[in-house]
């Protein structure tokens, strides 16, 4: 289908973006890779007055290293993420999850920042960002601020981004110690969204699990941390039994939805199975 008519701006700097958003009228939409926005516009579920395209803003694209973090520009595409050496070295979980996103065509256009700003509960990157304690750098008319991942995802398709604000980059704090990571995704066909998925990052010390961070995809309106599992894993020996018994807590505190692919109880069950598998793999079992 064809979207309803809209005005279009293609600025080249962040400052110009803010300007274009501020002067774009009632309903302004930021366009990143368009892989989520364009479909809803074509179905006429969204009909913005102005679309501000970030495609020309070079400063938003790319990955760099800072002292205590790697920093991923919002407009870095999924396929850029997949081939980035810094991400591969420091946060392979991001690459592993990104590789499961959609298909090549979508990954060439869709962006890291767009996927997080869209905050689809079935999207794969929000739970990963949550598990890695990512920090979201936002710029708006009121200036620049940094929001922790736990505060960024507010509700279904809703983030801490205020009107007129822009996600410019995401900081992934550098991890100390021996970490293993794994993204375990369950879906029905290769290019489909997750029914449930689990992002696990596990720090092991001398055969026991020192620290575990577990992010859950599609187990509620926002990505969730499986806090009960994390607590149960802290300090245990990295054995199948210990991991299985900790993973049994995976559905605690979740509120999954029911849809054509899965009723809520099945999602809760999957969360436990997939958490067990993700933690085992991350712990190197």
């Amino acid at each position, binding site marked *: 289908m064809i979207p309803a008519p809209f005005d279009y701006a293609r600025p080249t700097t962040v400052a110009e973006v803010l300007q274009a958003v501020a002067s774009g009228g009632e309903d302004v939409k930021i366009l990143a890779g368009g892989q989520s926005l364009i479909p809803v516009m074509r179905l006429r579920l969204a009909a913005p007055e102005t679309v501000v395209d970030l495609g020309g803003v070079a400063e938003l694209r790319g990955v760099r290293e800072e002292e205590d973090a790697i920093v991923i520009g919002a407009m870095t595409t999924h396929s850029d993420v997949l081939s980035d050496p810094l991400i591969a070295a420091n946060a392979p979980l991001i690459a592993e999850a990104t590789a499961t996103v959609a298909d090549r065509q979508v990954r060439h256009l869709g962006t890291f920042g767009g996927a997080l700003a869209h905050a689809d509960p079935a999207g794969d990157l929000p739970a990963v960002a949550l598990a890695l304690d990512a920090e979201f750098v936002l710029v708006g008319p009121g200036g620049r601020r940094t929001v922790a991942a736990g505060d960024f995802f507010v509700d279904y398709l809703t983030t801490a981004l205020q009107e007129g604000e822009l996600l410019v980059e995401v900081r992934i704090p550098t991890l100390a110690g021996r970490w293993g990571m794994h993204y375990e995704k369950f879906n029905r*066909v290769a290019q489909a969204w997750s029914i449930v998925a689990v992002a696990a990052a596990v720090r092991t010390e001398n055969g026991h699990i020192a620290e575990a961070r577990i992010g859950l995809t599609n187990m509620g309106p926002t990505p969730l941390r499986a806090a009960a599992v994390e607590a149960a894993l802290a300090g245990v020996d990295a054995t199948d039994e210990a991991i299985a018994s900790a993973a049994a807590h995976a559905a605690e505190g979740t509120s999954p939805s029911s849809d054509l*692919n899965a009723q809520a109880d099945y999602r809760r069950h999957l969360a436990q199975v997939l958490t067990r598998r993700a933690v085992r793999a991350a712990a190197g079992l």
Partner: protein
Amino acid sequence: MTVTEDRPGDLPERTLPEDTAPAKEVGRPRRRKEDARLITGRTTWTDNMVLPGMLHLAILRSPMAHARIRSIDTGAAREAPGVVAVFTGRDLADEQGGLFTVWTVTPDMVRPDHPSIAVDQVKHVGEAVAIIAARSRAAAQDALELVDVDYEPLPVVLDMEQALAEGAPLTHDHLRSNESFHFVFDSGQAGTGANVEETFANAEVVVSRRFVQQRLIPAFMEPRAVVVQPQGDTFTLWSSTQVPHIVRTVLALTTGIPEHKLRVIAPDVGGGFGGKLQVIPEEVLCLLVARRLGKPVKWNETRSESLMSGHHGRDQIQYIDVAADREGNLTGIRARLLNDMGAYLRLVSPGIPIFGAFMFGGAYKVPAYRFDCTGVFTNKTPTDAYRGAGRPEATFAVERIMDELAVELGMDPLELRRRNWIKTDEFPYTTSAGLEFDSGDYDTATDMALELVGYDELRAEQQRRREARDPVQLGIGFSTFTEMCGLAPSRVLGTLNYAGGGWESASIRMLPTGKVEVVTGTSPHGQGHETAWSQLAADRLGVPFEDVEVLHGDTAISARGLDTYGSRSLVVGGAAVVNAAEKVVAKARKVAAHLLEANEDDLEFSNGKFAVRGTPGSELSIQEIAFATFSSHNWPEGMESSIDADATFDPVNFSYPHGTHICAVEVDTETGGVTIRRYGSIDDVGVIVNPTIVEGQIHGGVAQGISQALYEEAVYDEAGNLTTGTFVDYLLPSAADLPAFLTGNTVHAAPGNPVGAKGVGEAGCIASTPAVVNAVLDALRPLGVSDIRMPMTPERVWRAIQEGGDGGDRATAGSNAYGGAQTETTAGVSTPESSLGGDR
């Protein structure tokens, strides 16, 4: 016999080097000559057509499943920028006529009127209620939102069994019930087999099951599109259709435009799967609007529009009973079906289950046979042909119930099949349903298939996994199928009350320079007719493959034809090409005799040359004769100046491809996820004209059949909205989800046509679905699972493992006896681990 194995990541090089290539074209793995333009899209897709002054149509569709249209306000839309005209059903009521159903399956079949655009009432979501004609597609789309329709909701009926219940809401309030027809065939009554009631009353074993063929959507790659150009009182209509000839005749009858004033063109068409075996409302509406406005118009649909309003397929509830003795000899099969027609009967809707009516016995000798089918109206999109059309349903039922009977008898499922199928020396074999199966060798196909998939090794692995209580279990499923295709002997269609014939036509034109035009009445939409027909003609005429051009799909060029569906094109249309070529050769022989001053009987014809037997050096090629025809300077007395020929082929019988498909699946008992581990098939499709095309048809068909088993389903909510309205929810697999298929063939030439082909267009799709379902159940029977409704989603599989039986997904279970210990264990399964590895 050939077996080819695919190597993933390493595309098999299938073209033989020129010097070792067989002299004959038939049998050569020619690359398809049409592919470059199809794959790059640089071709005449209907939506690529642009005509001067062309207007774009957009169609407003009903969001209500059943409602009375109180009023439609089109005022704002008429005023919108770029809009030229707006039409409602009332505006067109006097001239739109009614859409046709060409198959009256019973004398008392009920066929409600079906307007192309709703006038007073809408009967399903997606029905057209208003049309915008605008200068651009965007303007037309924008104006749709300005049309205001006032609907008065009417009660909705969606479930077939509820629709037949006393007091159910009526889909058509002027009718007495929601029943369209009730078709019965009984071998006792027909005198073609034993008495069914007695057989079942006296049977030692009866197994009964209820199976559900879910509703599917054809989901062709190219959405439908129509362009109409009016010129004076004549009209040219381009449509993305499988059936331009049928479209022309039916549109003439529907709209009153005289047939000779209407030219229909199916340019390159991007897939159909039966979904474009239709005369669509939009073709009628484009004609009417073009006639009203005197301007060319184009309509093309969005994918969501296509999923919602193009016809759907399958949607059948099957009650199947099988009777046998304790040794496993079948004595009878009884099928009672409900088939959802949707809100209206479309072109051949009621005939779809009837295509399967005589095939529920499959490849087996079944003394008593009964088929009973009720067509039911509901407030859903109409159903009609979808790849296989009636035969996948029949094959599924018989191949599934054979496994159930095997479990009941404690027999190996393959052993039970072998015991019952028709033996090679028994062909031709007349079944209790009255069909004459032409040929086959089920034993050889099965032996080859077992070897192809490494059957013994798979069974050993299955045993190991069971013993190890592996959370991932292995299952193996069979489908030893046969199907009926090559549609169709006209005489048989007549006895079944189908309005048309089943013949096909071809013309061969020998051009002055010796090049050849083959005009076919078939209408390819991805099958590769241009290549295969060129191979046929090249062999019969003895001209180079490259010198043949195949023309199709334009009623002004291919005047006679019955188009492409039902695996008929090569079997019937290819046969017509061969017959036409034979006629050309016969005429050329007369000319050659004249020019070589020899007796016709002394001429031999090979590799395109006529030579006088025993006189070396005196020869004349058919291409030289083509030029001699053009000049006609020296021409046989009394003969027309042409060696061109037309031919028609009308088969005397159907053809019966068969094969053995074996599927091995891995079932993750913790998540319910199913992965195809290995898939192998040996098919007998008769003589193979092009092995690459045959393999491609099997691959695509198998993928589609797997997809029915595991992925696809059109789902409606309680209000009658299609909830699987985009490809996010209507799930299709891609190459990433499917294994490398192992395929091979046995070749027994079909006796009923000069090509020797049996048809391959639907075989893969017909055979594969039950093989997959049988495999999943084979993996899970030790866990007490007796059935799982299609598509076997991970959730359904998981629930069946949790709850035992069929996972609670079946309204009424048939007899739930599985013999032995399983009968008791179905309810008592707790976790997968606890019950794995038990006795089987």
